[in-house]
């Protein structure tokens, strides 16, 4: 116990300057989180998918058709603005809308009499992916209407060959056209799946990226903290400590304990500050967060210490840190949530960074998560124990 106390004291004393590093990381965090808030909340940076709609045909069927499109899932990503042709062209010119759809007068009558549908679209830029999508949608719709009309005309010709009277033939043609429009209205949905896409694990984008940054910060702070380990190993400080009678367990455990303390000085105020901002602050939340933080940071610490021991070359070690954590982070959905990709979804469940993220946002962990977490912990402890005694 005395050895632990002594080493804890040493670790604490020799690392108090780490507070400055933690302060620098805090600054970095504030800049990053502000950047995310700016990106998420700035109206100018939001995707503007307004579309101008000039409808000159007042036929009930056309209204039904447009109503169906506007109330379709398309309405989630596109805002329709009813306008006149002159005003619509001005809006397009000012980039206030990305496209202008023009349904000409007598469009339905034209369809009824076997002519092509009079629906046109003017676009601002053909390179815009949203315009390409919309253009394809409208083209398909017009093609559908026109091909349905062609089919009706073939039926009309058949009736004539069979000697059906003109009035009866026209009635049949109109009835068939109407059926096609109805069928189109009810069957032309763009998106088959009706599920709401839960891409941020049930959180808002800000909340999600805040937690991601918190974990990134834990990793960075731990790497910065253990930077001294490199000198300790090179200068044989660890060898000397062991020779003096301290055990490996005492030496590394005290390092982990004190680094958890120093990193907590950065993470806990950030958590508290965020909860305050979100009007969710209470001490119980912070108290509940502490054990989650400790459990989450232990494997991170062990991995970092093991990499410091294993990789002796500075540049190689930095590359290993970068590759290891960025690849794990990417497949955890840190950069962007990778939902709906079956293989990655399974892999993520075993990815300890994803497990930590889930634990941080208080979602329940499943068996795969615990297996993944414990797996990495056991592997790291094994590797750590094997490598920690090698100093040359």
């Amino acid at each position, binding site marked *: 116990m005395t050895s632990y106390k002594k080493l804890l004291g*040493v670790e604490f*004393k020799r690392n108090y300057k780490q507070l400055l590093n933690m302060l620098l990381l805090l600054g970095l965090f504030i800049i990053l989180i502000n950047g995310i808030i700016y990106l998420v909340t700035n109206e100018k940076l939001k995707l503007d998918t307004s579309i101008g709609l000039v409808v000159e045909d007042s036929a009930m069927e056309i209204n039904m058709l447009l109503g169906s499109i506007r109330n379709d899932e398309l309405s989630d990503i596109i805002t329709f603005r009813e306008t006149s042709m002159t005003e619509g062209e001005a809006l397009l010119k000012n980039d206030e809308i990305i496209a202008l759809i023009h349904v000409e007068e007598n469009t339905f009558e034209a369809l009824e009499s076997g002519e092509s549908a009079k629906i046109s679209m003017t676009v601002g830029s053909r390179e815009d992916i949203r315009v390409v999508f919309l253009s394809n949608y409208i083209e398909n719709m017009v093609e559908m209407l026109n091909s349905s009309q062609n089919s009706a005309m073939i039926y009309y010709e058949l009736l004539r060959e069979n000697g059906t009277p003109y009035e009866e033939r026209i009635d049949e043609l109109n009835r068939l056209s109407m059926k096609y429009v109805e069928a189109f209205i009810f069957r032309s949905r763009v998106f088959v799946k009706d599920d709401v896409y839960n891409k941020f694990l049930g959180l808002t984008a800000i909340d999600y990226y805040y937690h991601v940054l918190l974990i990134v910060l834990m990793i960075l702070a731990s790497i910065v903290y253990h930077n001294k380990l490199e000198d300790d190993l090179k*200068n044989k400080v660890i*060898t000397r400590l062991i*020779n*003096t*009678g301290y055990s490996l367990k005492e030496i590394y455990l005290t390092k982990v304990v004190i680094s958890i303390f120093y990193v907590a000085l950065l993470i806990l105020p950030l958590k508290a500050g965020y909860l305050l901002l979100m009007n969710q602050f209470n001490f119980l939340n912070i108290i509940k967060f502490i054990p989650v933080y400790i459990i989450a940071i232990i494997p991170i610490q062990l991995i970092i210490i093991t990499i410091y021991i294993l990789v002796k070359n500075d540049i190689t070690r930095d590359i290993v840190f970068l590759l290891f954590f960025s690849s794990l982070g990417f497949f955890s959905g840190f950069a962007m949530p990778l939902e709906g990709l079956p293989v990655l979804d399974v892999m993520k469940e075993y990815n300890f960074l994803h497990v930590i993220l889930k634990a941080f946002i208080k979602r329940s962990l499943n068996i795969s998560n615990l297996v993944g977490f414990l797996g990495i912990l056991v592997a790291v402890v094994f590797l750590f124990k094997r490598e920690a005694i090698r100093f040359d």
Partner: protein
Amino acid sequence: MLQVKSLAYEYKNKKVLEDISFELSSGSVLGIVGPNGSGKTTLITLLATNKKELTGSIKHTMEKGPLVIGYIPQEIALFSELTVLDNFRIFGKIKNEKDQLFKRIISALGLEEQLNIKVSKLSGGTKRRVNIGVELVRDPQFIYMDEPIVGIEYSIREQIVALIEELAKEGKIIVIASHNIDFLRKTCSQLLKLDLGKNVYFGEYNDDIL
């Protein structure tokens, strides 16, 4: 007594030491010499740390008391952010500054004025003296020193020579790896010469061997 039998060591499939055997009795001071890369540092480290990967045997036999091995590496193995005194507390395990051995070592190494100064602020030579001191205050019976006097000024070197003589008289076994012939001549009673990891001479100190 120190008994080394058929000691061999491989690192990354390369033989670093081969078939090293010798014995030292109480009060012996052995100098290990040899060109760079001959295995001096490896031998000193192995003797002090008794690694599991080595083959052969290293046996430290005590006449009385617990076994304490002192290892003074070539590197400055100290906590540079802490004071000299803090380093003595951690590595030397001193309980208080009135300890007689502590006073004696501090005096012999000329460190009285530096006790409350951070190691990072000391000169290279002074750091090296602290590097030696923290090990000697533990009162080891076996002392392994790797290039102990590099960068240390002449007057202090003489004090260190005197200290080693005193420690040898007390029955301690001291092993020193060094390139400094003058220092070895003044301190060593025996010599071990290594070449490419092999023992090419072991016996009484003799200038002609160097």
